[in-house]
């Protein structure tokens, strides 16, 4: 009986005619195995770097938003009492979530119990369901009261999901700035929501009127009131998608109760 030397087996297999069934199966197996190892190896090794990239991109977007808000950089550089903090909030209870941290948030969000299904009438931003836990950023002053909040918002645009962050200041009724994190809108038309000039219109716009209803919106044409910004020409669908997104997240089903709590000083 010849020794079961692996190298010998290998050579014997290679010596078989190409069309033999055994060789076909063996070659198929070997190649598939090598490819699987290569692919899995690359993925596993590179995964931590990719996660880091995602986190860094988020951070960069945040910093870009902060840089655009007029006067904010002075505010941050000034008194030592002010600092930007992040916290996970529970939207249903309108307060900070006691047990969830930004690190544990992804795991919590994988649980479907932390999502609220929206009825078609409620779901004006076409989200399907709304997460009950959201990570927001706050700027507290030296006395501890909240001067600025940065809230992640999302909606469905014409070409796909739109993700943005809105900064709200003062009595929680004035927009400080808006930044778009991602979108799939048509370049040159709806894609112009990403342009600095358009987004800067949002600074100093008011969110709610005296009756308490959310009035912040993209106008039908040129902005007429302190609640509106100019529409983008030729991007009707994107304009209305932005309006609906803002009205959902600033309303009672979004951050509305949270903003009320902050205004009352309960946060």
């Amino acid at each position: 009986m010849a020794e079961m030397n692996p190298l010998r087996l290998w050579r014997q297999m290679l010596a078989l005619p190409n069309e033999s069934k055994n060789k076909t199966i063996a070659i198929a197996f070997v190649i598939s195995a090598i490819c699987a190892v290569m692919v899995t190896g690359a993925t596993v090794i590179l995964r931590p770097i990719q996660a880091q990239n995602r986190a860094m991109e988020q951070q960069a977007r945040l910093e870009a938003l902060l840089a655009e808000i007029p006067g904010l950089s002075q505010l941050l550089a000034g008194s030592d009492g002010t600092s930007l903090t992040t916290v996970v909030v529970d939207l249903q209870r309108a307060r900070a979530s006691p047990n969830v941290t930004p690190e544990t948030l992804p795991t919590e969000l994988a649980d479907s119990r932390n999502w609220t299904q929206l009825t078609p009438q409620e779901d004006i931003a076409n989200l399907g369901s709304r997460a009950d836990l959201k990570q927001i950023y706050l700027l507290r002053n030296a006395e501890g009261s909240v001067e600025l909040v940065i809230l992640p918002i999302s909606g469905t645009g014409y070409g796909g999901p739109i993700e943005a962050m809105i900064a709200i200041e003062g009595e929680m009724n004035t927009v400080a700035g808006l930044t778009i994190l991602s979108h799939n809108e048509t370049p040159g038309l709806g894609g112009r929501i990403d342009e600095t000039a358009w987004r800067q219109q949002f600074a100093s716009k008011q969110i709610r009127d005296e009756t308490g209803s959310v009035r912040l919106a993209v106008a039908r044409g040129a902005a007429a009131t302190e609640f509106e910004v100019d529409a983008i020409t030729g991007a009707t669908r994107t304009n209305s998608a932005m309006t609906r997104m803002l009205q959902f997240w600033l309303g009672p089903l979004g951050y509305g109760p949270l903003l009320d709590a902050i205004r009352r000083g309960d946060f």
Partner: protein
Amino acid sequence: MSDLGALFIRSAFIENMPLTLFLGLCTFLALSRRPGTAVGLGVAVIAVMGVTVPLNHLIYRFVLAPGAWTWAGLPDLDLSYLRLLTFIGVISAAVQLVEMILDRTFPALFTTFGVFLSLLAVHCAILGGSLFMADRNYGLAESTVFGLGAGTGFAVAVIMLSAIRRRLAYADMPDGLQGLGIAFILTGMMSLGFATFAQVAQP
């Protein structure tokens, strides 16, 4: 229900695979000289996409997606990086299946298709359909509608182009434009025309 209808219209016309997303152009341009071959290609694409996109959706959702193995106690297992290999495998198998079925039931049609059917195994548009489905998290019904819609859009576009090119066979044009050159320019004009669909109001 109207959501699915809107999705069909959107995947067939507004996000037409060859004319808006640039997918499937190799076969689109190479097989659009005669309306006969174009019709064959169109029907084949609709059939294969209608089958593979929902099938790939099921496999993605229950085997590859993050969280698919939660029932087995492995909620963190994320095999989505294998989706490319899996989708290609499923598409090749589906093409083989469609070939066999056609051979049994419509042999005349099978001979007209000839070699095109095997080409579909590595078709950018067919694979692109599955990849978009995975990226956009469609459900099963949406996947089916998306697959059929995208296939229909491809078929409509290739049949239209073949009709125009057939007419142009009699036209006098500069030598350098003959064949591929004019096909590109025609496709560009059709793409421009399809871009007007972008303004169609959806419910």
